[in-house]
């Protein structure tokens, strides 16, 4: 084994997009190889958990952890990697704030399993459900157990840095890799622990080229079925664009391409609850004073929880565990 610093990357409850984003850095990936010894990266190389367990505590310099904590396996590995890593980065929206898998927190874990194994799209006439352990002649087979809710990485272990995005933009990943290498070479210093890296300080509007005016919204509309002015702020056109509250860093990709921001970079610096910011901001610029008129306008946002918490639900203040009243 070389004496290069060790690098690890892990995926918990995630889609794999983060890995692809890393590979999308093109030749920059070679810098990783040149500067690091990749010791654990399930998507890219074969490895056993026991190999990681065997490592000395803190022996991995940098771990990029993507995915939320959905199963006991996720949780086990998160704790393990925390123990073995000097720098643990919550990488991508899932690890940061739950992302789309976090929307499962709107439902009970049992409901989720039920939906997965026994709905019209699943042919399961015998009502077979997976079991966490099963005895076969060869011995006992185990699969991970699902946890009641999906948690973000920092709800399970201490996290050093946060790198948002679904996935993080490749140019931001490249910049972070550059930074770490410069730190290794003694040319730069690490930011304070707890910082958000690979993203901007402001919100998407900061990087959005669309023209913006004083806002008064008389209706909320979906993006299709109407003429969209390509140069004007989408929100001003009644499109519920989350860019106003979403951390900058993506170069306003979606609004530039003509689609509204859906918020994958999460809340801006210092914000406690992402959805609350949007609720407040959108409602503030509605042009109505009568409750009925306000309701009529708000009907244009048919699913406010989804609109405001698509990425942030597991990281929100309420975290959307089900309340008692809806339980059967």
């Amino acid at each position, binding site marked *: 084994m070389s004496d290069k610093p060790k690098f690890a990357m892990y995926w918990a409850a995630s889609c794999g997009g983060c890995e692809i984003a890393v590979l999308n850095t093109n030749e920059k990936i070679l810098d990783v190889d040149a500067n690091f010894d990749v010791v654990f990266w399930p998507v890219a190389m074969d490895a056993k958990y026991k190999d990681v367990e065997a490592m000395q505590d803190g022996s991995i310099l940098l771990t990029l952890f993507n995915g939320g904590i959905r199963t006991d396996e996720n949780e086990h590995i998160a704790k393990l990697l925390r123990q073995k890593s000097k720098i643990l980065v919550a990488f991508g929206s899932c690890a940061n704030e739950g992302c789309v898998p976090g929307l499962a927190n709107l439902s009970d874990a049992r409901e989720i399993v039920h939906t997965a194994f026994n709905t019209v799209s699943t042919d399961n006439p015998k009502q077979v459900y997976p079991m966490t352990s099963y005895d076969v002649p060869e011995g006992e087979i185990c699969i991970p157990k699902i946890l009641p809710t999906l948690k973000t990485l920092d709800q399970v272990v201490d996290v050093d840095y946060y790198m948002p995005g679904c996935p993080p933009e490749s140019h931001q990943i490249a910049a972070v890799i550059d930074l770490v290498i410069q730190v290794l070479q003694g040319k730069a210093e690490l930011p304070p622990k707890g910082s958000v890296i690979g993203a901007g300080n402001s919100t998407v509007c900061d990087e959005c080229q669309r023209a913006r005016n004083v*806002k008064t919204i008389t209706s909320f509309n979906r993006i299709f079925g109407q003429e969209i002015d390509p140069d004007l702020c989408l929100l001003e056109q009644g499109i519920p664009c989350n860019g106003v509250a979403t951390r900058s860093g993506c170069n306003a990709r979606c609004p530039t391409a003509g689609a509204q921001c859906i918020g994958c970079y999460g809340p801006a610096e210092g914000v406690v609850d992402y959805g609350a910011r949007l609720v407040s901001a959108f409602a503030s610029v509605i042009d109505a004073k009568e409750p009925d008129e306000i309701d009529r306008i708000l009907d244009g946002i048919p699913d406010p929880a989804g609109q405001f918490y698509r990425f942030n639900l597991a990281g929100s203040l309420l975290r959307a565990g089900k309340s008692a009243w809806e339980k059967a």
Partner: protein
Amino acid sequence: MTQHGGTSPKLALSESKGEERIGVYVCHCGTNIAGVVDVQEVAEWAAAQLEHRGVVIGREYKFMCSSLGQELIEKDIKELELTRVVVAACSPHLHEHTFRTACKNAGLNPYLCELVSIREQVSWVHTDKAAATAKAKAVVSGGVERVIRHAPLEPLRVPIHPDTLVVGGGIAGIQSALEIADAGYHVYLVEREPSIGGHMAQFDKTFPTLDCSACILTPKMVQVGTHPNVTLLTWSEVEKVDGFVGNFTVTVRKKARKVIEDLCTGCGICQEKCPKKVIDDVYEAGLGYRKAVYTPFPQAVPKYPVMDVENCTYFEKGTCKACEKFCPTNAIDFKQQDEILTLQVGNIVLATGYDLFDARRVTNYGYGRLPNVFTSLEFERLSNAAGPTNGNIVLRDGKTTPKAVGIVHCVGSRDRNFNNYCSVICCMQGLKFAHLVHERTGAIVYNFYIDMRTAYKAYDEFYQRVLEEGTLFVRGKVAEITDVPRRPDEDGHLIVQVEDTLAGKQRRIPVDMVILSTGLQPRYDAKETAKRFGLSCSSDGWFIEKHPKLDPISTMTEGIYIAGCVQGPKDIPSSVAQGAAAAARVLGKIQQKEISIEPVRASVNQDQCSGCRICNNLCPYNAISFDEDRGVSLVNAALCQGCGTCVAACPAGAISGTAFSNDQILSQIEGLLLLNIDEPVTA
């Protein structure tokens, strides 16, 4: 860099552990608090259970606001090196200033003190001692969490514009304007009628001394009219008020008089020649006539007449112009238009007065149906030497002198069907009428009252004087006044039907004239006026003072004062006193030249602002502007009033507010919820 979004609240708590040294002071307020809240337990609990949050001392004391109580805090700040102070006592609206000053005296920034209310919001509204004590602990805990996140602040200094606006030219407004003007400062006095004088100008005599109302009022009116420091704007109304204490911008509509003031000499020829007679609903209370061009009364100030275009023959039919033809100075100008004036003032005194209760609403008293039922204001005109009958007290036929007169108290007052409050002046007014009727006609006079209220100096003596004059008093609320006789002796009379509650029997008393001692009620447009000036009205419609006992002159809006009946029914001496008091307040403010105001202001972190412009039209004071070049929004601290709406709206979290920051409030919420109040149930 700050914490990341989803961080758990528990982490936030431990981070600031022990950074501050906090003193917690719990006031007994005699038994006001200590009677319900176990203050000792609260203080001890804070010291023990909140130690990890930085509380180093918890004390309770009989009266924290006393000088000894304040000294206690000052001593602790110095000796225990406190960096934060929490006082649990009364409402911050009462004593926040007291405790901040104590901190300041001990060298601690005054804004590092938090006063939490355990009196108005705990001991006075709860009865269960255990629950109240638990809530007091929660409130203290909220205060501790909040105060940790306080930052040292300096009060903002705002210059005071030396000019003052007085709205309403009745006796209260006149008094206020004169006091300020005499002190050497400029006053704009705005009155919507053609002349100042208000209701007092309509009266004949004033109780209890029976001075002639005009004799004591007109000199003051003339003084106002000629004072170099007073700009008198009659026939004018305030349309809009912008700004805040020290710097109000007021828009006034000066209605077209159709008379050029610079040319008019007030000779009165136009009124004399005007062929159109109109019932004068305002000054003569509907009992007399005026012309279409008129000054409401001979001593009017200013002397210039106004033209009533709704009734003027020229405006109705296009011909006449008698006034123009006869005016010796060509002062009539039919084309004159309303003027809009913009005034800059530092303070405002509102003295817009009252309306008379509409006695037609009490149908059983027959006012408006039975000719010889009069309202108090009608009787004032009737008995006034300058009134329509030259002071002869006669029936509505204009000639017959009544032989028996009934005076009914509490008309429209102390009655849930109309106004539920006591109108204060009606008893004395009724007694005054009794005296005048007795003196001028020798008629038998009955006074019908529920309770005789003659508080204040020399008032009860006046009651006794009227008793002595032989007025008959009947204790009972009059049930009805009718002209339908039941017995021959009732024929041709008005009959006052009433239970004589002291005799315990119903009586029907024939009289010739009934005078309704009509109550006072807020101006019909009081709500709109309140809105225009940013004030609030009580449910009755009177303007709300800052404190009902200790500050009946100020309002919740700094720089705006109230005087006279706009605050509630009152007699002339009280109106004058309040007008003068308001003037004293204004003068005090002007002489400070600048005032300090709470440093509650919003500001934008420009690094974080993305220029999304959500906040741009949220500010009613236009304090938020957008810098096109830099693509960021800015808050002008001089215009900001500190409401915090933009802070709450900023989607990027780029706007923060002093004294009510997100951190402070979130921490307070967490502190408040430290304890829950579920009661253990013994199984």
